[in-house]
């Protein structure tokens, strides 16, 4: 009898546990180097912590819209220079300290300081002064009108941190989000647990484990064996049809902010000649690259702008696949027999496979490329910092990053004065129609200067257990927002 009761009890609790599974194991490709989103460019940090552990004054939603975050609402002065943020009541950090205007001032002042380690310092450049009015109100004064300010404050680099916990933030991140950092097993996983004192609606999950699996074969095995419940940013597009055909899984293909480009060293001969760059653009067959490297996932782009953005202008026509025209342009530029340059490829498959296809397409018009496969650290050293490259393939995953073209010291070294001027006008403009117009001009200018070879917008495939809902489809910023994720049965 006792035995039967125990058994029944076990069965009951068993089914109950099944009915409300509240833990999730989700895999990502890249492990963060450390856990401070405000002092590193690594998107992997945001992939784990954005919105889960750290929150900013504003935040991005799944569709890229900017909505209130820790600031409940804000007033903007007539001249557009003063933003008064009204903070939410009752928000506390995971260490129990309250989040108030002082923390906001600390965060913003730290990010814009002379010695700031922030990877996106430009986001804070416009801030002239941050004043605490009272614990729930903070006033930010800008040096000049910045139509992007609320957007900038939504970035992972602008999340609110506390002076009390900043010392250990790289290993023990303390934020205000719905999940608390629990543990980090380096080289394997990071575990987050639900924050019982969260100010907003409690998430359905009580525990979330992020596993880091960069090897596509291991990713496939782990997913098939259901060792992981979901994989955000699945590394091997060739395996997706198998998951689609399997009723245990669902496959979501979203878009990212990742403009995948054939980055060109604009200061290196002969690539400094716009005719040569145009020839390269016409030599490339985008669809072949998307099909060959990404098994069809990806949207062709003709400029450095995300196609899902309302201000996107389709300029793919400027650089249609036309080998004859490419040869003619090369001849005109003084290279009738072509030339040889380097093609340095980082590890992702879009670069490695795409690189072989690009090399073959360039060879067809007479441009020989010496391919070198590099690991990320070497790529950052040689290409990104050292600028020692002719061509490379990389995806620029930051949202709304056309501004990098204004920087003459950025690795592809464009920085045309006219473009810099255009960007300055854009920053100072708040009227939406005028901004759209300026953005269209900017897109056209870099497309007509053929600064880089514009290949495709990187897709974001997520493979997940069929019973999970609420995962982000798109990647408006690098994030794995778990607040809305739940098991349906």
């Amino acid at each position, binding site marked *: 009898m006792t035995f039967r009761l125990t058994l029944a009890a076990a069965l009951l609790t068993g089914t109950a546990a099944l009915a409300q599974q509240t833990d999730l194991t989700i895999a990502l490709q890249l492990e963060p180097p450390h856990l401070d989103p405000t002092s590193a460019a690594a998107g992997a940090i945001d992939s784990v912590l954005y919105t889960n552990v750290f929150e900013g004054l504003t935040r991005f939603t799944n569709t890229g819209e900017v909505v209130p975050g820790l600031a409940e609402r804000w007033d903007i002065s007539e001249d557009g220079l003063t933003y008064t943020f009204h903070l939410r009541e009752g928000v506390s950090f995971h260490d129990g300290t309250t989040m108030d205007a002082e923390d906001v001032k600390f965060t913003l002042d730290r990010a814009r300081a002379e010695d700031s380690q922030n990877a996106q310092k430009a986001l804070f450049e416009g801030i002239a002064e941050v004043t605490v009015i009272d614990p729930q109100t903070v006033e930010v004064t800008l040096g000049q009108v910045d139509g992007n300010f609320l957007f900038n404050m939504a970035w992972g680099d602008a999340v609110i941190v506390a002076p009390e916990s900043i010392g250990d933030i790289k290993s023990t991140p303390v934020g205000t989000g719905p999940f608390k950092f629990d543990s980090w097993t380096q080289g394997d996983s990071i575990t987050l647990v639900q924050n019982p004192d969260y100010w907003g609606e409690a998430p359905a999950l009580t525990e979330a484990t992020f596993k880091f699996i960069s090897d*596509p074969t291991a990713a496939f095995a782990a997913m098939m064996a259901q060792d992981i419940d979901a994989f955000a940013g699945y*590394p091997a597009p060739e*395996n997706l049809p198998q998951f689609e055909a399997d009723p245990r899984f669902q496959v979501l293909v979203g878009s990212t902010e990742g403009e995948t480009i054939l980055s060109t060293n604009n200061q290196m001969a002969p690539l400094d000649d716009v005719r040569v760059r145009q020839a390269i653009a016409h030599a490339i067959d985008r669809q*072949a690259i998307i099909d*060959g490297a990404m098994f069809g996932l990806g949207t062709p782009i003709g400029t450095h702008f995300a196609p899902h953005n309302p201000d996107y202008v389709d300029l793919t026509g400027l650089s249609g696949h036309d080998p004859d025209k490419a040869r003619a342009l090369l001849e005109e530029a003084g290279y009738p027999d072509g030339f040889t340059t380097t093609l340095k490829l980082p590890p992702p498959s879009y670069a490695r496979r795409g*690189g072989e*296809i690009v090399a073959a397409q360039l060879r067809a018009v007479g441009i020989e490329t010496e*391919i*070198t*496969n590099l690991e990320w650290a070497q790529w950052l050293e040689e290409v990104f910092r050292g600028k020692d490259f002719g061509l490379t393939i990389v995806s620029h995953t930051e949202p709304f990053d056309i501004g990098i073209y204004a920087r003459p010291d950025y690795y592809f070294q464009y920085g045309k004065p006219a473009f810099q001027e255009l960007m300055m006008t854009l920053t100072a403009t708040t009227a939406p129609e005028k901004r759209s117009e300026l953005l269209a001009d900017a897109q056209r200018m870099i497309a007509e200067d053929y600064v880089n070879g514009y290949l495709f917008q990187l897709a974001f495939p997520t493979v997940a257990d069929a019973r999970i809902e609420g995962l982000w489809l798109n990647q408006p910023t690098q994030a794995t927002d778990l607040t809305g994720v739940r098991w349906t049965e």
Partner: protein
Amino acid sequence: MSRTLILGAVLSAVFVAAALVSFVWTPGDVEGIDIANRLKPPGAAGLLGTDHLGRDMLSMIMTGARTSIAVAIVAVGIGMGFGVPLGLAAAAHKGGLLDELISRGNDLIFAFPSLVIAILITAIAGPGAVNAIIAIGIFNIPVFARLSRGAALGLWTREFIMAARVAGKGAARISAEHILPNIANLLIVQGTIQFSLGILAEAGLSYVGLGAQPPLPSWGRMLADAQTMVAIAPHVAIIPGLAIVLTVLGLNLLGDGLRDALDPRLKVLRT
């Protein structure tokens, strides 16, 4: 002739022949990317199908054999070219400072795991076939140095060497004229074995991306590229895998067979 020797010789010859033929003719273009015809199974497009970029697998294997064999030959050449003279010199000055230096140097290089150091060398000097050759070659030097020193030591006590010394020949001349021909069979056998290890090492280095760079086909890189496609197109992984296995097996069998055929002592034992 033993069956081992014949089988080994045939397998090795097939791959050497494939590599040689690839210089003048391949059924397809190894740089001809044709996305529409990718991942075709063997028989559907070409004898061995096509890879993930639509290139003919048979052509890739043939040209890949060339890469493997070229790397392995030069690496073994480096090993023999430096290792054998060092070993002979050490044997000629047995117990002397030179012997001590060479032998301890060998121990030092042997103490490192070769593939790891090869990865280190190519990571520092940059990936590429030439650096792979150097990295693999360096580790062949102590193998040949030890082998020739050991074999030569045994010969130095023999009467015909005594006779040569009495006749007034110097150590260098004796090594070249009397010792070397007598240890040649050992070197050939070891060379064959090292050759197969060289092919394996090249495949390993290319597999991790440090060997021959694209578009030059390489078996190791073909395997690495095929990794994620095993489930949808197994042939792209099986074919280069088999090529490596069969070549290494063939060369090992050839080495074994040659040893049996060349070593008179073994012959006596067998009969």
